[in-house]
């Protein structure tokens, strides 16, 4: 996976390594290859496994995991209440459909907009750090849940019921397009000066400011972009599900899954959250529904293994040498050069 050789444009000093033309070509290959691979795999999904509800939910989780990737991976803020933006997207799009009778595409746009507005209102939370930030977002998402679940204009008592605006196939195609667009957004964040600024802020906000980075604005933009992805995910979920109560959209398990999927695949990479979601959500589909008790056990074990042995996520195994876990480097070296062994 060549896309993990990231940021060569600013890391490689002039006069070292390959020629500029080859370098630029490799860089563009690293950007286009993940788009083609992810688009092709998800596009071929229905012919591999004919369950559109599962595949669309998978795409929705990929969007959520990419949202976590941007806000946690690049800025270091862990949003436990990330589900709040998903719920905001669900209710923003649903209420627009019910009250204004908007079409499906407008509903998706309004879902994203609702989440962005919610993120803007919550942006002062970015002044907090670490566990305080995580808990504050959690509280905010629950506050939003209680409002939505108890107000009559949000159909808190009766539950939401929406007309079907897209066929399951159309909705899946839209979801795959959304995943590819999200991937483009993450690739931009990864390779641009904006992404470099985010990594700088994550490293040391005071020093980044002294390098001319507008810390507050840069961090807020990342926060709004991640909320927009969750909002689109929410709107797609609303269009797919069409009848629901507020408990499901604001279920904290969704936050936990999105965070675990992103971390399992590897944050700060473009395809990590995609790989993590595909592997873990497929596992969930395979055993989580028939044997939920074992599934939770396996999930718990996987998280322990991740923290201990793969802190950089699955994709770190194929990343640059400095990103790979030490045990993996040893294993690979021994296999590559057995004669060195005593």
């Amino acid at each position, binding site marked *: 996976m060549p896309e993990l050789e990231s940021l060569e444009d600013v890391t490689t000093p002039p006069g070292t390594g390959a020629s500029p033309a080859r370098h630029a070509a490799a860089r563009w290959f690293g950007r286009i290859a993940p788009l083609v691979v992810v688009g092709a795999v998800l596009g071929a999904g229905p012919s591999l496994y004919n369950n559109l509800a599962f595949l669309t939910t998978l795409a929705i989780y990929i969007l959520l995991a990419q949202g976590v990737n941007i806000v946690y991976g690049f800025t270091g803020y862990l949003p436990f209440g990330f589900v709040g933006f998903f719920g905001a997207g669900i209710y923003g799009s649903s209420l627009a459909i019910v009250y204004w009778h908007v079409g499906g595409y407008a509903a998706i746009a309004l879902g994203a907009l609702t989440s962005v507005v919610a993120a803007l209102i919550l942006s002062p939370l970015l002044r907090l750090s670490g566990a305080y930030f995580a808990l504050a977002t959690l509280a905010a998402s629950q506050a939003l849940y209680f409002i939505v679940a108890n107000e009559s204009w949000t159909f808190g008592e009766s539950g939401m019921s929406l007309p079907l605006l897209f066929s399951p196939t159309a909705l899946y195609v839209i979801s795959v397009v959304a995943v590819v667009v999200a991937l483009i957004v993450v690739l931009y964040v990864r390779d641009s000066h904006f992404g470099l600024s985010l990594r700088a802020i994550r490293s040391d906000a005071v020093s980044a400011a002294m*390098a*001319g980075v507008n810390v507050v604005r840069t961090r807020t933009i990342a926060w709004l972009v991640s909320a927009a992805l969750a909002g689109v995910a929410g709107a797609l979920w609303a269009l797919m599900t069409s009848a629901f109560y507020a408990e499901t959209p604001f279920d904290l398990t969704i936050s936990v899954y999105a965070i675990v999927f992103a971390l399992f695949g590897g944050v700060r990479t473009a395809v990590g959250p995609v790989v993590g979601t595909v592997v873990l959500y497929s596992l969930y589909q395979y055993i989580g529904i028939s044997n939920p008790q074992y599934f939770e056990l396996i999930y718990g074990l996987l998280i322990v293994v991740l923290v201990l042995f793969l802190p950089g996520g699955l994709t770190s195994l194929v990343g640059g040498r400095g990103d790979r876990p030490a045990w993996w480097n040893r294993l690979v070296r021994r296999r590559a050069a057995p004669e060195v062994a005593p």
Partner: protein
Amino acid sequence: MSALLEVRDVAKSFGAFVALSGVSLDVAEGQSLGLVGPNGSGKTTLINVLSGVYKPTHGTVRLRGRDVTGLASHRLCGLGMNRTFQVPRPLAGLTVAENVALVRPSRHGTADLGFDVLEFVGLARVAARRVAALTSGEQKLLDLARALAARPDVLFVDELGAGLSPSELDHVAGLLRALRERGLALVVVEHLMGFLEQVVDQVVVLNAGTPIFAGTLRQAIADPRVIEIFLGTHA
């Protein structure tokens, strides 16, 4: 001639603790001003105030006649003021080259140094390395390179010499002299008098947050007030 940097009656308090009071100083283009004083006398606090890390409680700061009091660090960076940190703070998650590539050069600053900052400080050969792989001396040089990449007109240098070997000290003193020759205004905080002698024209001595002396370094060393705060009266 009006000064490039004018600091007037600046004060900074943290709750009831007065860290700085009545600090006024001028720095002209190409001037190198030393800032000396015992530990806790407010040298680093003054640099933090002048570089936007803290807002002053009182007083004004002007750069080329423009009021820049209390502006955020990134704005000051854009206007041509920059600094190094006492404990170097290079961006640890980034490579050496990325630390410098991050910096958008000041648009208002006039000091186009006309050289590659990594070449200048001597870190070009480790450009692709991560910060964690650098020695502490190299991290200090990277801090300086990061500050210079912003093309500042005024550079605050906070104890760049501390902890360096004699040869590294000579290297750094040479760099600062070269910068001064190119017209940069320097404000240098330093405890090492031998180092200071090589790089500054004038010094301001701070004690308990207030300037008590301004003049040349030789005059400062002979001044009874300065001797008193460093050595005490009954030494």
